[in-house]
């Protein structure tokens, strides 16, 4: 993936529209943290899904994938495995020791939420950029 970022930034500097990459990355991140519901990203019309819009769309996709994968790994490998014994000491939820809960129940529910969130987010992004299927 890293080479892709390089090529993006390389092109980005020639393009005026999306602004400089670091600023833009920050904007996307904060937008996401607010639940990604506000700020309607002005997607261009489908017939001019230009090079810059394409990059913008992909960059947003990569950002949301990154956030989701971070949560995915933190909950399962983090809370369910690495921190599990510590969490077990800390307390319990619904009669389950906390670490045990994440290893045998909680992670699965978070996985479900992540997949449906991603589907919702991307289907919305498709519409904003006018690239949704008929």
């Amino acid at each position, binding site marked *: 993936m890293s080479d892709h970022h390089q090529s993006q930034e390389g092109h980005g500097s020639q393009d005026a529209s999306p602004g400089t990459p670091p600023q833009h990355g920050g904007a996307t991140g904060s937008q996401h943290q607010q639940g990604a519901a506000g700020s309607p990203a002005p997607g261009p019309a489908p017939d001019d899904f230009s090079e810059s819009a394409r990059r913008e769309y992909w960059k947003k996709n990569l950002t949301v994938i990154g956030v989701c994968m971070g949560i995915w790994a933190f909950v399962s*490998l983090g809370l369910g495995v690495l921190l599990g014994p510590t969490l077990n000491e800390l307390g319990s939820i619904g009669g389950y020791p906390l670490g045990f809960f994440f290893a045998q129940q909680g*992670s699965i529910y978070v996985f479900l939420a992540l*997949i*449906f969130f991603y589907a919702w987010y*991307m289907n919305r992004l*498709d519409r904003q950029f006018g690239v949704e299927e008929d």
Partner: protein
Amino acid sequence: MDGQQIMNLSVVGLTFALYIGIAIWARTGSTSEFYVAGKGVHPVANGMATAADWMSAASFISMAGLIAFLGYSGGAYLMGWTGGYVLMALLLAPYLRKFGKFTVPEFIGDRFYSKTARVVAVVSLLVISITYVIGQMRGVGIAFSNILEVPLEVGLISGMAVVFIYCVFGGMKGITYTQIAQYVVMIFAYTVPAIFISLTITGIPIPQFGLGGSIDVAGESIHLIQALDKTLVEIGFAPYSELANMSMLNMFMLTLSLMIGTAGLPHVIVRFFTVPRMRDARRSAGWALVFIAILYTTAPAVGAMATWNLLNTVIDDPTEIWDNRERLAEPDAWMAYDEQPGWMAHWGQTGLLGLNDHNEDGHLQYYNPNDEEMAAFAEEHGWQGSELTVDRDIIVLANPQIAGLHPIVVALVAAGGIAAALSTAAGLLLAISSAISHDLLKGVMMPRISEKQEMLAARLSMAAAILLAGYLGLNPPGFAAEVVALAFGLAAASLFPTLMMGVFMRRMNKEGAIAGMLAGLLSTLLYIFIYKGFFFFPETALFPDQEAYWLFGLNPTSFGAVGAVFNFIVAYIVMKLTAPPPKEIRELVESIRTPKAG
């Protein structure tokens, strides 16, 4: 033939009739229908079919027992086998659906503009899928011989015949709609006994809450998990809720390997080729996980509750032994042989439960002989070894009888186990036959054959694959259990990274992809063979398969994630040293990244 057996056979017979009826309704005419059900499957329906496709005989019959045996670290299987769907939904399914062809090797061949890459992918796919099929055939055998008490051969052959009808004539379309029916049978058969066992033990009908619930023992209320912890410790096992039985490193790597391996299994990925649009693929992965999670969140409850039932049966009053191991020294702390419940006697006959009064005191002592302290305690009191052996499959199979449920539920569990095995077998058989007819024959060896000829080839290779699977089911290779680890390892190390780089790295070229796949494949094979024997001949193993000899203490079954990292690194280095892919390939990558537009 007693009443129970008549009931069993009629329920299983009814489900078989249903599957055949669906097969007749869903006959196929075109290669598109045969390989990907005409790409017209509703995302929820596809989710349900994916769940049946994915949940194998092992998930249905063995997983709860495996978790019961492993306790906390059994979570590696739960998280690994569900977490893979996040990878699939975010990183693969939508893009491969947009690509819009028929098979996984086809994507690899086209994206990396190389027949060699396609053939390497076919080889991985065949090793993974054939390995897996063997396990399903064993599952059909267990369901028939242990529950239905029908000879293994009869059971296997009738199972194969049903699969033959709906796979050969129905292709993916027939498989999809039978899988939906099989999911319903399977989930019903799994959850009904689980609800009853949860009600009996904790008074809570939802097993997921029941596992956190309380039980009343000796007039006091205590959490089920705590009661398990306290009891298991006194007989020399690790506490149920604490990370034991596996090192943290191995639990971490096993979870990760199973996640990546799940996302790289071709017979599951191809299910997302059957939905109409990219957005359906995204949503459908979520539905698949909903249907899978119903079983996977129930399984730990079933495992823990069945374990409690078992302990409660063999130990007269578990509360008496808490913090008081000495009580175990008295024979009457244990179940008397002549007082064993009916289900124990029944499963004792099948060999899944082994009872043996080694010290001939008329009572059954059950403990962990591998625990030094416990072994010393046993020796001191003249025990001659643990007198109960428990096969992990028993946990699910005996559940309805332990809970004293109606005979029809026992019959349903048999039908559910068979449905789980057949639905997964069908998905695998389709992956195998389409790799042969579409990738090897049409794609590489005889590109000029017509659609009609390709259909014929697909049906013939399906028939051949079924015969092969049946043969392997009747004559299972001794290493069947070992190779399942190999299947996940290879899927993780060879297919997943290559597919992911195909979507996310425009610059990835054929040289990098092929080198990466081979590096992942060979490193994983090598690490497994070193400890398990080359081609699984145990005498050729270089080191004993024990933690002290594993590299960094890493279990060979947890190696897939490391193989995947090798794949990424080698692919990246080779890519940097070789020419970039042609322009049209970069355009292909752009086009699969967005739903519409070029």
